[in-house]
């Protein structure tokens, strides 16, 4: 039985709902040794900022119970090198490219989108308003409804390509942010970014990561992510890209049933770089075994 795995995120058409999450696949070259990127829905680049960012000093990561904390600090090559050196490789991948953008000011978001909008290879923008690991920007915006509104509005004015706002779980009501994103013209939201966490050594009494706090990811956060997707899905009519602890095809299907139109694989790429290919096989098989001819038919089929 042939299965139609394609999904639409607003005007963005994906051949299947599998996306590789920002910050977990760099700019695609390393993971392409394990994954045929032309077979998956798309890849979301490591956050790009206007100028290169060195990132945080080590130690940047630590393992926690069924999860990990990271405080990379948006280390990236910057916009100029990204266009010059990374886009040519990404152009030939045969995969949909979503460019993730991080900035320290509203003006910087706008300038980045303005410049990158001209790049045909980029099919959509994911706006990172929720990085927990940098002092300026990131979560400062993610925790301020007015700032998210302003960023979305201004960025919308610069591009007709789909805009996805990546939401933080580190606030009191994620629904408010999804509502404002929709109101200001975003095409979709992705939920969730990492949860702020920390870990201390009981003998040295020092934090295990230099930044003190980091972003928690991995299977430990899946129930939280699912609950956020559910909340948004109940309250706001906007496509949701589910992210948070997806390790296998069952997790992915669960996100779609709860309310996600597509999903991103993040931490799983570090442990099993072939995870996205295995998930592709898994969701296809699930559809075949349950006589589902179009995977989009399972979106929001939760029974509550």
């Amino acid at each position, binding site marked *: 039985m042939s299965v139609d795995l394609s999904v639409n995120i607003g005007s963005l058409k994906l051949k299947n709902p599998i996306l590789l999450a920002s*910050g*977990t*696949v*760099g700019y695609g070259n*390393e*993971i392409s*040794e*394990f994954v045929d990127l032309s077979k998956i829905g798309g890849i979301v680049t*490591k956050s790009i900022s206007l100028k290169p960012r*060195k*990132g945080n*000093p*080590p*130690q*940047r*990561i*630590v*393992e926690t*119970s*069924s*999860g*990990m904390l*990271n405080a*990379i600090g948006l*280390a990236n090559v910057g916009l100029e090198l990204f266009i010059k050196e990374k886009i040519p490789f990404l152009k030939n991948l045969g995969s949909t490219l979503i460019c993730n953008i991080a900035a320290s000011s509203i003006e910087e978001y706008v300038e980045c989108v303005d410049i990158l909008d001209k790049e045909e290879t980029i099919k959509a923008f994911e706006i990172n308003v929720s990085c927990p690991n940098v002092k300026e920007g990131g979560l400062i915006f993610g925790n301020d409804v007015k700032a998210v509104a302003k960023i979305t509005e201004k960025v919308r004015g610069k591009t007709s390509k789909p805009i996805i706002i990546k939401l933080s779980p580190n606030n009191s009501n994620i629904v408010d942010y999804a509502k404002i994103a929709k109101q200001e013209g975003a095409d979709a939201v992705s939920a969730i970014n990492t949860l702020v966490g920390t870990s201390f050594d009981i003998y040295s009494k020092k934090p295990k990561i230099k930044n003190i706090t980091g972003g928690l990811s*991995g*299977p430990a956060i899946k129930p939280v992510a699912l609950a956020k997707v559910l909340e948004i899905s109940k309250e706001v009519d906007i496509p949701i890209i589910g992210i948070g602890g997806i*390790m296998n095809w069952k997790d992915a299907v669960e996100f779609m049933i709860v309310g996600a139109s597509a999903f991103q694989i993040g*931490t799983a*790429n*570090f*442990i*099993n*770089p*072939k995870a996205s290919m295995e998930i592709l096989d898994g969701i296809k098989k699930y559809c075949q075994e349950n006589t589902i001819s179009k995977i989009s038919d399972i979106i929001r089929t939760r029974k509550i």
Partner: protein
Amino acid sequence: MLIKDVFVQSNQKIAENTFLLKVNAEEYIPYVKPGQFFNIKVNNNSYPLLRRPFSISDVEGDSILFMYKVVGEGTRILANKVVGDQINILGPLGNQFSINESSNHVILIGGGIGIAPFPYLIKQLPNSVKYSVLFGVRTEKEVHSYGLKNILYSSDDGTVGIKGNTIELLDIHLKQIAEKDVKIFACGPNPMLKALQEYTNNKNIECEVSMESAMACGFGICQGCPIENKDNNYKLICKDGPVFNIRDIMI
């Protein structure tokens, strides 16, 4: 870079808390170089979640050997593996020790489990090269000689070799061999490598070090293992290393 399940052929205790794991890894053999490492998943579930990086300790026929010390949950699980158990290995990863430039005398310095990559490196040294191994331990119980020859010891408590550290041992050894054309390869705890950096810089001795770091992926995508180079840029230990010229990095 391959990712595969492999079978445990043996998993032998060789010193206090120190084990030697042998796995059948035929497909990997043509690609492995001394100084490289593998990122190993010791279990099929999410606790512990991440792989663990281990340097290639030795190659025997179709098998790769990993020497490891039990320090946490991952290595405790690994120590309980028996013949026939499966583990998932990803590699070979990283760069290698540069052994093609000939030096008259090679000195290998291992601090504790930092000795791990040297048995395979020794096998790859040209026959014409003389070498010696300086093995620093806390106490005699940590001593073994797997794949090593010409060993001199230093220990914190004086139970084996000189009482002191590997840098003091190196200083004595260099005076004894009275050889000018020396190259050092070293691996061990950062304080040892930092002291070695100062020593080799002062004496202008060629030295390569294998660095260690917490990491998630092992092949450059998580960006979790930076090390600052002399130009104040970050390099990744997993991809740009783990072996660095000691002059190029900030330890």
